[in-house]
């Protein structure tokens, strides 16, 4: 299978400046040397808690945030590969037709002063330079695809509920017929019953249009439902990457284990396994040498403080960044009370 997107050693560092001369005294390493590939037609999940860098990474891939280092190779329609990080502005604008994004909050991502028709026509006009007659046809087609009536085009965002607004945001992302879509927490702001509707819509769109998704989320049940492979991030780095069913059945990194153990399950009278994690993530400023997770890890040793673990293959293609991955005790299971 072809690789649609290859991220290599991507870094986003924000300088910390001090004093009257604003001298740089350090850097917040929001994304610190991340590499992964996404296959054509795949849904790749990116999970982690707030501040782990998952949204920054997604924005850097789209160049909504200029990366500090590394490359993002995108496979073009003609089969050629281009590096998104060094593309000049006109070429980048042309590429936006193929790379789109759906944001988390459908209340702030739609312009309240534009009708839905104008919002949807904008990418077609700006990127593809299509005339007004065809634009109208494309808007009608896009609304129908996400299950909204044609007359929605004349209305404004405030007339729609959160779920309907997220359908509009999806229609806007898909109207240029992209190949790759970043979904940044697209269902996190929605009610449970509406969330399921939007998830079904995302699945349908992917099947009909052969889309490749990068799905960013903190909700592991949604990630399991939608994704083929998942990368778990902690403080700017990937700590585990692998096939979703394997990771949920047998997580290898202590952090992945505690994330999975912490999910509240809709099954009463189950005894949760021990969380295996204490406290909260330290701020990105306080990361010293060694493994970033060691301050919360019950298995940390001197080795973890001395040397940062690198992502390594455990033999089945799954990657984990932990010195002790092979020697950790078996994964605790949920048991009936």
């Amino acid at each position, binding site marked *: 299978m072809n690789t649609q997107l290859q991220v290599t050693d991507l870094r986003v560092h924000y300088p910390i400046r001090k004093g009257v001369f604003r001298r740089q005294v350090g850097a917040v390493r929001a994304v610190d040397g991340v590499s992964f590939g996404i296959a054509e037609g795949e849904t790749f999940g990116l999970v982690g808690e707030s501040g782990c860098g998952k949204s920054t990474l997604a924005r850097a891939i789209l160049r909504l945030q200029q990366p500090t280092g590394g490359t993002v190779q995108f496979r073009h329609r003609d089969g050629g590969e281009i590096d998104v990080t060094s593309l000049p502005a006109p070429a980048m604008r042309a590429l936006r037709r193929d790379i789109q994004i759906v944001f988390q909050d459908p209340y702030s991502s739609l312009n309240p002063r534009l009708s839905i028709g104008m919002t949807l026509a904008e990418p077609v006009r700006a990127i593809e330079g299509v005339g007004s007659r065809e634009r109208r046809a494309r808007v009608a087609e896009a609304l129908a695809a996400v299950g909204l009536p044609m007359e929605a085009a004349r209305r404004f965002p405030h007339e729609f*509920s959160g*779920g309907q607004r997220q359908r509009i945001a999806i229609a806007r992302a898909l109207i240029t017929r992209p190949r790759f879509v970043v979904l940044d927490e697209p269902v996190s702001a929605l*009610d*449970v019953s509406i969330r399921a509707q939007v998830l*079904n819509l995302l699945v349908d769109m992917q099947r009909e249009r052969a889309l490749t998704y990068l799905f960013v989320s903190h909700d*592991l*049940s949604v990630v399991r439902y939608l994704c083929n492979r998942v990368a778990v991030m902690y403080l700017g780095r990937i700590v585990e990457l692998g096939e979703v069913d394997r990771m949920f059945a047998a997580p290898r990194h202590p952090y992945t284990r505690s994330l999975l153990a912490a999910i*509240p*399950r809709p099954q009463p009278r189950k005894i949760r396994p021990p*969380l295996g994690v204490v406290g909260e993530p330290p701020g990105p400023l306080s990361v010293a040498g060694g493994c970033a997770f060691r301050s919360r890890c019950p298995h940390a040793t001197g080795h973890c403080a001395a040397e940062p673990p690198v992502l390594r293959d455990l033999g089945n293609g799954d990657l984990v960044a932990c010195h002790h991955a092979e020697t950790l005790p078996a994964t605790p299971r949920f048991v009936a009370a």
Partner: protein
Amino acid sequence: MSGAEPVLEMRDVGVELAPLGGAARRITSDVDLALHAGRTLALVGESGCGKSVTALAAMNLLAPPLRLGTGHILLRTPGAAPRDLTRLSPAELRAARGGQLGMIFQDPMTALDPAFQVGEQIAESLRAHLGLSRRAAHDRAVELLQLVGIHEPERRVRAYPFQLSGGMRQRVMIAIAVACSPAVLIADEPTTALDVTVQAQILELLRELGARLGMATLLITHDLGVVAENADTVAVMYRGRIVERASAEALFTAPAHPYTRGLLASLPPLDGPRERLRPIPGQVPPAGVADADCPFVARCPEAMPRCLAARPALTAIAPEHEAACFLHATVAA
């Protein structure tokens, strides 16, 4: 359900939205809830269903344009006659809130005062309700921070909210809520703003404190996983009314109302095969109640003609299990 009388009982509570110069509109209706010592009742539902205004009503804390339209809120504390919160004077209400009723809000950043050290915010309640001296209240604040699992409480007591992480702020909120050992704890989406590993720790703390202090807890949440792991009994709200009430066990193993079933079917499973989700069709309705028909009829996959003609009442369908749905009424009749 325990045989003892409930510590807090809401009877027939209806909240109204009465904008200045506008007509009053009912937001909730016929809400009956009973909170028992040492037990947790979860109130679940989607945005606008009326769960948060019910939490405010439980403390008689509604502020204009919201007001209590109907109903009574009975507080029974040991060694005192039952009191109706709707009939207390403002001074008596102030004494009850914070004293016998503790509350935790969703967002600890906005609920804490940014200009005061957290220790002062905890001590304020202790001095007002228990009449402790400044010195004694400070010492007790340190103990409370210890109780809610904050390390180095002697140092943290002097921290301002911005110096604490989200999880620690929520622990401070909990310390304030339980400072006077209240009989009732009302927690409105206490972990929604938190990361999942922090959420697990905070819920653990609430369970432990509930058991240790014997508090009756009302837990408001939209997360059915949080309900399953923390509640003894559950009430499901839709369009301002309770549509199903059951033990947590019964609600998850034998959900009776089509809305409850729809909510459970909307959840992506955490194990087993990944079948297509079966969402509830339509939109989440805006806040407000209707009387003429079943509140769920517009989205219900099992709607019948009689659901349009009348509104089903909440009726017992099994021991400790009630639902407001004609599907079950026909069986009983």
